[in-house]
């Protein structure tokens, strides 16, 4: 049976784009952005540095220093654009692939590695960065984000929430429930879906018959598709959506149309399910190359600037590698820590028994 993936689509999908793959600035009637040369250079630096963090982490996994890694390769613009749209007071809820957003929230990249190296399940204080822990169960965090946004409403605070999820997650019940909750309570939240075309091996057609952003209208709030490889557009659209949310206009769904250029994780082999030409086509839409082209065309940066960013990336990568290897293994009795906030008789008993058992080996 063949399925027409465009069935139910009233019109061809529209895509908000402000910077073409060739580095040409284009206009959009609803969204625009005015960036200083310094701001553009700063976005370029972000993109290059997070790609380097990702590359180093993949290498660390290949060398056995990480158990697994979920690469963001190809999704840098979606993450940096949306991440840089946040104010300090806004709260972000990531999946396990939002290394670029973590960068924007000043989470030390080495703290991202704890989960993947197996020294902890999450190594940063969400309140310190207004960046929640990575969530591995697909879509669960969307409900947490809506609840948090309901708290913002009750606090009458000037803030909004953004929650990240992928195209696969849109099939989850929790994501659909979160859409309903957000709509009914008019919660200040931006749903940021990075449609990277693949949920491990399953293409988008296995999740939906209509463009994902159009799902929003059925829930009663606006949805828009943005070029997820265009950092300008991602920044402009997310900034507007967050502003609307803070001002009481309720939720919005942003579908960042992008591509997972790497494997799902380092344990995955995409050659089993997708053709090489697809990747080659998306490489022409690379999120970093188009900003570099824009910088050069408009004489906003010279080779010296690019070299300096590369050097900074090299240093960041080396530093990340060094500090990853220096991450201490947890003590065995750390198993029992933080299971409960308040004293718990059974945990205390088992901790004491296990400590005594371990001591038996040391005598």
């Amino acid at each position: 049976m063949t399925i027409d993936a465009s069935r139910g689509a009233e019109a061809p999908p529209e895509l908000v784009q402000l910077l073409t793959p060739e580095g040409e600035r284009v206009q959009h009637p609803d969204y625009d952005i005015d960036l200083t040369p310094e701001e553009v250079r700063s976005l370029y630096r972000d993109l290059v540095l997070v790609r380097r963090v990702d590359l180093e982490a993949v290498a660390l996994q290949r060398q056995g220093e990480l158990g697994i890694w979920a690469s963001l390769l190809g999704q840098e613009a979606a993450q940096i654009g949306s991440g840089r749209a946040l104010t300090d007071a806004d709260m972000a809820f990531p999946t396990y692939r939002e290394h670029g957003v973590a960068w924007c929230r000043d989470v030390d990249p080495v703290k991202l590695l704890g989960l993947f190296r197996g020294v902890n399940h999450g190594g940063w204080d969400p309140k310190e960065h207004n960046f929640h822990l990575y969530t591995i169960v697909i879509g669960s965090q969307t409900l947490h984000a809506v609840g948090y946004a309901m708290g913002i409403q009750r606090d009458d605070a000037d803030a909004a929430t953004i929650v990240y999820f992928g195209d696969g997650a849109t099939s989850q019940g929790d994501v659909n429930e979160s859409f309903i909750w957000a709509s009914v309570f008019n919660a200040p939240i931006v749903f940021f879906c990075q449609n990277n075309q693949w949920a491990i091996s399953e293409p988008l057609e296995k999740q939906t018959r209509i463009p994902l952003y159009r799902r929003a209208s059925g829930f009663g709030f606006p949805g828009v598709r943005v070029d997820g490889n265009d950092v300008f557009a991602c920044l402009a659209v997310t900034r507007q959506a967050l502003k609307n949310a803070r001002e009481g206009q309720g939720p919005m769904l942003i579908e960042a149309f992008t591509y997972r250029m790497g494997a799902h994780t380092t344990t995955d082999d995409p050659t089993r399910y997708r053709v090489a030409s697809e990747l080659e086509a998306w490489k022409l839409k690379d999120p970093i190359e188009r900003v570099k082209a824009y910088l050069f065309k408009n004489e906003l940066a010279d080779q010296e600037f690019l070299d300096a960013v590369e050097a900074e990336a090299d240093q960041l990568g080396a530093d990340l590698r060094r500090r990853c290897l220096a991450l201490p293994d947890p003590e065995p009795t750390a198993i029992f820590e933080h299971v409960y906030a308040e004293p718990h008789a059974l945990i205390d008993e088992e901790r004491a028994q296990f400590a005594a058992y371990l001591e038996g080996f040391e005598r």
Partner: protein
Amino acid sequence: MTVMSLSKALNEGMRKAMEDDPKVLIMGEDVGKLGGVFRVTDGLQKDFGEDRVIDTPLAESGIIGTAIGLALRGYRPVCEIQFDGFVFPAADQIITQLAKMPMRSLGAIKLPVVVRIPCGGGIGAVEHHSESPEAYFTHTAGLRVVACSNPADAYSMIQQAIRSDDPVIFFEPKRRYWEKADVDTADTGWWTPMDKGLVVRPGTDLTLLTHGPMVKTCLEAAQAAEEEGRSLEVIDLRSLNPLDQPLVMDSVRKTGRAVVVHEAPVNNGFGAELAARITERCFYHLESPVLRAGGFSTPYPPSKLEEHYLPDLDRVLDAVDRAFAY
């Protein structure tokens, strides 16, 4: 002292908690204007407003998931799951998120969320309205699991659950909602800590270990046994996780016999854990194996059969007789 039903005691306890702490919220299906299908939240929305007593969409995962988010923002949500059998759509959020997020955060996150679940049978209901799912949750580390059995405990335990910085699964014996007793609302000196059990009837010959709706049944069984010359001690466990082990073990060492009673199926039920722990710790004190009286290894039956499924006074006494036969 005020005479009130268990349902009213929960209501008064939540009201007090909401007065004491503006961060306490009530959320669930029909908890607002209706006051809940059992009226446990009756009048709270009228007095505290729609922002604090929230009628939610009809989706249990959404209730728990958004409660987690509210807790992350500093609130203390008290969620009502309308009936025991409807908690399973929320099981993922409870097990993978509510129970584990504090450890995931290395202690940076506390989730003071209470999940109230009316539990148990005996009300002639249709399928999914009479279950006892406590063992699913006692098997999940990170949750505290408690069960109240009478109005006074209901009043004190719901307030302690709300004050706890840990997530609490709070079982309410739905067939006892309307039973009345004295509750002292003026003083907290009588409160037993939420993680402690209570000897509700002292005895010397055998210990009945139970919780929730079966406490009353066990007290009646102990009364009947006394008329036959047997002295049964009845322990209301109150807390299933953590278990008040010293209370249980001291009693069994004294009596030498134990019978566990719960409505949930015996097979892999909470009683199995109790039997194992008692055997480990009281082996040389035992005059007989730890026996269990509870539901069969079947789904909960249609209501015309529930009197045969639920352990009653005779089923409890039958287990007691078997224990003394050793």
